[in-house]
């Protein structure tokens, strides 16, 4: 067992990383060793990254112990770069996290300064000056490269900056020079954010944290009102929204809600979240309250403004959309479904059930109007999975049964229509799939069934009978 991470007290005693635990205990018998838990570390880092969303939407993870924040265009909200860095570090310190940070125009340089330098804000002119005295490890290189460079006496980054580039590239590969250029800001290095960046977002920072659901909803309505003008400028309405709630102690909750139509109306957006918050009620622990509320528009679509007419026809459509939104927000998208016909003659494939929230705005859905092959009548209720039926007597070779047993009950057939032969789709089921012969059957009590025979008499395997639906 070896040490992987140390706190300040341990460093003061003189322990090192990669030291054996036995050796460390020899130095300090009272050593408190905690087993490493990379998953928990990762969760903590994710939590911090979520919390960092308060500064910028562009937060990227860096390895196991770092975060990149792209603060382009965000600094003025916090009173400048220096104030922002101060704010981040002091808030993290208050939370009990020992963090170091640096701001510069190159991610590579910030990485090096934060880890090996003194941190702070680096102006563009003094980049080289600050980088030069740092050890070569500050360039994010592999350990072998660092060791090889040190063997050659190239201990500081300054040595590399002034060394001829061609021999370095030949000996250590292009990667070294790439890292060097990135640290100097000569090569562009994009930061890939953890989450998709919202196309629009607005937020409210509160002096006094809020806890009550009504307050949250009221504020959501206000934020939605401030988003309305931006949506109008773009001529769009939001289809998917995300409410981000920053709790005082640093925890971040995200509540997503979808709409069946592009929305702009603040009251309807707030109504979406009213159902959603009701649904996630138990998971949303307000604790000491939320200090920042942010509303993101994660997906938006063209909004066709329609003029109200006197007949109120549009009102009806709006109320249907509002109902679909409310139900989908509260009970989930899959709860409410609409049916769409497909061009397939296999009964279970002829109808697709799709969430109503997806298909409502597109009007007709994926349906084609020309579904008009000749077919027999179809049952009112269909079993999602056909149920096996025991048939005692059937006309051979392809007649209806005389009587059958289904769910432990004997049915005597009084009338029947059929067969209607449906071949399976060879392009899906393969050429081996047998055809089905469907019969409409009425038993002597007036129940009407749709049963089918798979396979033919006189062939192997013997035919089997199934119950597939019930007629009214």
């Amino acid at each position: 067992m070896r040490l992987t991470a140390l706190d300040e007290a341990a460093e003061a005693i003189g322990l090192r990383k990669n030291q054996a635990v036995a050796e460390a205990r020899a130095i300090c018998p009272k050593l408190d060793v905690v087993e490493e838990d990379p998953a928990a570390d990762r969760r903590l880092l994710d939590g911090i990254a979520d919390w960092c969303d308060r500064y910028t939407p562009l937060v990227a993870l860096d390895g196991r112990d770092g975060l990149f924040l792209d603060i382009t265009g965000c600094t003025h909200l916090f009173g400048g770069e220096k104030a922002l860095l101060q704010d981040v570090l002091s808030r993290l310190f208050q939370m009990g996290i020992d963090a170091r940070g640096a701001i510069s125009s190159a991610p590579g340089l910030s990485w090096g300064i934060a880890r090996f330098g003194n941190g702070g804000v680096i102006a563009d002119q003094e980049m080289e000056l600050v980088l030069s005295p740092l050890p070569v490890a500050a360039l994010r290189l592999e350990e072998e490269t660092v060791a090889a460079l040190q063997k050659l006496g190239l201990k500081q980054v300054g040595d590399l900056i002034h060394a001829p580039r061609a021999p370095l590239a030949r000996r250590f590969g292009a990667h070294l020079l790439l890292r060097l250029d990135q640290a100097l800001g000569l090569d562009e290095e994009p930061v890939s954010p953890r989450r998709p960046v919202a196309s629009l977002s607005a937020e409210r920072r509160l002096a006094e944290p809020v806890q009550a659901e009504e307050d949250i909803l009221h504020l959501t309505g206000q934020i939605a009102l401030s988003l309305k003008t931006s949506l109008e400028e773009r001529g769009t309405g939001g289809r998917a929204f995300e409410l981000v709630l920053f709790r005082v102690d640093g925890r971040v909750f995200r509540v997503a809600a979808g709409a069946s139509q592009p929305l702009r109306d603040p009251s309807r957006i707030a109504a979406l979240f009213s159902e959603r918050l009701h649904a996630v009620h138990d998971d949303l622990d307000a604790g000491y309250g939320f200090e920042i509320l942010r509303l993101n528009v994660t997906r938006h679509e063209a909004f066709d403004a329609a003029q109200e007419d006197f007949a109120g026809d549009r009102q009806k459509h709006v109320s249907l959309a509002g109902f679909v939104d409310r139900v989908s927000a509260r009970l989930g998208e899959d709860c409410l479904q609409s049916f769409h016909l497909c061009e397939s003659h296999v009964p279970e494939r002829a109808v697709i059930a799709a969430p109503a929230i997806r298909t409502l705005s597109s009007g007709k859905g994926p349906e084609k109007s020309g579904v008009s092959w000749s077919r027999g009548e179809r049952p009112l209720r269909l079993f999602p999975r056909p149920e096996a039926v025991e048939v005692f007597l059937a006309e051979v070779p392809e007649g209806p049964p005389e009587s059958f047993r289904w769910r432990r009950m004997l049915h005597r057939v009084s009338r029947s229509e059929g067969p209607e032969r449906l071949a399976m789709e060879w392009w899906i089921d393969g050429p081996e799939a047998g055809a089905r012969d469907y019969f409409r059957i009425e038993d002597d009590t007036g129940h009407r069934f749709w049963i089918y025979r798979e396979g033919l008499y006189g062939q192997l395997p013997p035919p089997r009978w199934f119950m597939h639906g019930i007629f009214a």
Partner: protein
Amino acid sequence: MVQAPMAREQLFALREEIARLEGKPVPAMAAARQEALAERGGRDREKPRLSLGISMLDEALEGGVPLDGLSEIRSSCLRDATASAGFALAISALMQRQAAADATPILWIADRVTAMEAGVPYALGLKDFGLDPQRFLHAAPRKLDEALWLAETAVESGAFAVTLLEVKGNPAHFGLTESRRLSLRARAAGRPLLLLRQSGEEEASSAALRFLVEPAPAAIRLLPDRSMLGGSIGNPVFRLTLEKSRNPAPLSLILEWNPHDRQFFPAREQARPPLKRTAHPGSRLSASLNRPDRPQEMGAVLAFDQAS
């Protein structure tokens, strides 16, 4: 003594309020106002009702199925679930046709157990039954509470021509209070709500009507030259019993639904289906002749209905 008239006035006001909520004719105090309204409004003040096109039934229903309230349709066992669903959907088709613009959808709030036992509504079957599958929304809530919330919200939104709520049996959480709540909501919104109680017992509820639906042998297909096609299975036929209505006499009749015309017709009574068979015939072995009789078994043998 001064308080007595005050209290009485309060009492009258409360009575009036209750009567107004229930939609019943208001007694005594508001009678005059009612008369004035009746003079002005004439027949328009009549509650909207859907005529089923059968004179005998419509008379018993005082004009038809109410378009602004709760009606119950019941099946006695899950085997009959499709028949009752068929009758409810036939009424829905009529209501949808009567609704303005003909574009308002139907909402079907399904019950999980019934869906497993009797199948889920099938869009092509709906089409064959006279409904437009595009204007049909299917909701599958997980719990009864969710189903009740859905029904209430749907009725309130006013977006649906009719809302169908399917319930299995007589759940304890859906008693008189809940049905009364739904009924009041439906009345306030002026929208019809059909409660489909599958495999349920008769139960006191707030519904104005209750039908018991059983399947009956189908009509025979007619050929173009008006002759019958022997042995064919034509339009669906339902055996209806009007169990609850303002009319005290129970009414039983057989109706044929014509999906093409979207119309009910009275059907002729075909061969009476045989009585229900039982799983255990109930007869015991005959007593032995030359030996002492075997000891009597404890208890009685009951002829249970065969399990469905």
